[in-house]
């Protein structure tokens, strides 16, 4: 047994006959916030449900705090879950929603009042205790769901796309609040999301998943700057991703010779690292969109379309213009696999 706080060992998950997650291995330290990041259908929610015990694994083991919980019932695991839909109990007040878990544990009345009040205060809803859930806004409901989960002091808290139903401003606010709460309480958290900016802002480590497998586990900075695979690169915003063959970039249209190319599976560039107006390659502008801060271009090259982004004050290029461009090797992410 490993000495990690939470350990997933060769976890294989599926519904019926089809496999959704295959032989997943993941270790979490105590107090760590790990984001499971990936597009829908990559198995991140399935993995989270298996950790919570809401679905049985086909094979593999889950240990939490030194105990094998693979066969432990979900209500005996000490794991909390904040649902994407909040899942508040519609027939109970905010106070009773938060008190639900404590009442089941048989905690004394005065203690319940004290802890629920404290939990509601910590999410800024102290004055909403007697409201019905449906009288709250989405952001407030989300906070109640959070308070309800942390008041029982779970060993591990799972968050399933907790901010996806909120508008942009609230999302930012809740994101920093989550971060503050996590640091204050020191709860180990797994945060499931398809939003890379949430994962980058919150997580200590990010697990990028694709089709039921882990693509890369790394710190936010390393994921952002040094993706190891074409999939991670594209997911994280390296929109110009090419395979390398004999020192040339291979794209959908053809290939583009690249001087000084390293020996790797592929290279990837963010649009803003593509240099326009000078360089070794030639292309034609086939798309130009003014985005306010920046201008986004689509350049037709020998390898295929290349996306470039320049500051709005840089020299503009017109549609149909032939121009030189450069893909600086030092700005590229070096990919070791597709």
């Amino acid at each position, binding site marked *: 047994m490993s000495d990690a706080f939470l350990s997933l060992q060769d976890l294989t998950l599926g519904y019926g006959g089809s496999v959704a997650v295959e032989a997943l291995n993941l270790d979490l330290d105590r107090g760590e916030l790990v984001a499971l990041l990936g597009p829908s259908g990559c198995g991140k929610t399935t993995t989270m449900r298996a950790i919570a015990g809401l679905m049985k694994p086909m094979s593999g083991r889950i240990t939490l705090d030194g105990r094998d919980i693979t066969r432990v019932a979900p209500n005996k695991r000490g794991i909390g879950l904040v649902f994407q839909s909040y899942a508040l*109990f519609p027939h109970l007040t905010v106070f009773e929603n938060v008190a639900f878990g404590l009442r089941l544990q048989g905690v004394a009345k005065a203690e319940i009042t004290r802890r629920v009040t404290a939990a509601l205060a910590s999410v800024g809803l102290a004055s909403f205790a007697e409201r019905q859930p449906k009288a709250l806004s989405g952001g407030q409901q989300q906070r109640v769901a959070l308070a309800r989960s942390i008041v029982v002091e779970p060993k591990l808290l799972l968050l399933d796309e907790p901010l996806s139903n909120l508008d942009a401003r609230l999302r930012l606010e809740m994101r920093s609040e989550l971060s503050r709460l996590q640091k204050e309480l020191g709860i180990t958290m797994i945060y499931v999301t398809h939003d890379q900016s949430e994962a980058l802002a919150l997580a200590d480590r990010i697990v990028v998943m694709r089709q039921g497998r882990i693509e890369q586990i790394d710190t936010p900075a390393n994921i952002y700057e040094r993706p190891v695979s074409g999939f991670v690169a594209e997911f994280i915003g390296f929109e110009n991703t090419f395979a390398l063959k004999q020192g040339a970039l291979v794209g959908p249209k053809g290939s583009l010779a690249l001087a000084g190319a390293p020996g790797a599976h592929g290279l990837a560039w963010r649009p803003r690292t593509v240099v326009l107006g000078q360089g070794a390659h030639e292309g034609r502008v086939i798309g130009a969109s003014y985005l306010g801060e920046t201008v986004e271009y689509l350049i037709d090259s020998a390898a295929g379309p290349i996306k470039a982004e320049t500051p709005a004050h840089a020299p503009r290029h017109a549609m149909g213009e032939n121009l030189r461009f450069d893909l600086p090797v030092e700005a590229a992410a070096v990919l070791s696999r597709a």
Partner: protein
Amino acid sequence: MRLAGQTILFLVLAFLIGPFILICVAGLSGGETLAFPPEGLSLRWVARVFEVESFRATFAVSITLGIGATLLALLIGVPAAYGLERYNPPGANVIRNVLSSPIIVPGIIVGLALLRHLVIPLGVGILPALFIGHTALLIPYAVRIVSGSLVNLRVDIEEAAVLLGASRLQSFTKVVLPNIRNGIMAAFIIGFITSFNQVPVSLFLTGPGVSTLPIDMMAYMEFNYDPSIAALSGLLALMSLVIVLVAEKLLGLSRYV
């Protein structure tokens, strides 16, 4: 065009409500026979209703039967609806179709079948037979109405309860039941009224000494053609009306039916 629409509306309403009004007025007659228009107005036939011994006895049977059979139907129907909705067992659709058959199959066939193949061969008593027959008849209503309110209840609130430490049973009693309470109440009221007004099934299953109120009323009419039957009908219609109106006010009954 507008006038034609209003005329049709009026005719439909007259057709639906007319008989009810005719019966009520006929029940207030001062004459000796059931007739419309009544020969003078009086409350003597309304008072007479409460004097007929068999009406009182069968009213008690009908009430007991209505409440008992509905409760039993709910006791079976609520878990059945929950199981069908949440676990979607193999053959769930077949079960749903079978469950709706007592609504589709004429009651007279159900009654005959119960009599011929259950009551006679097994020698079941009249009251238990009525009880079984009515329960069987009401289970589909219970399952359908409760299913309706379960569909609107998200599964994840049960999962949330479980992850907060509730057992499956606790999540059912503390989270599911309170949220489908109105559906269950609606099913109870509809079940009770259905049982209380039930004629065809009861017709086959009642026997000497034990009868339900509607059956007894039919028997009474064969020998006494006086306005007390109209008076009683009016009273029963009023009772149903009051129950439905109160239920609508309290639960929004019409959402479930």
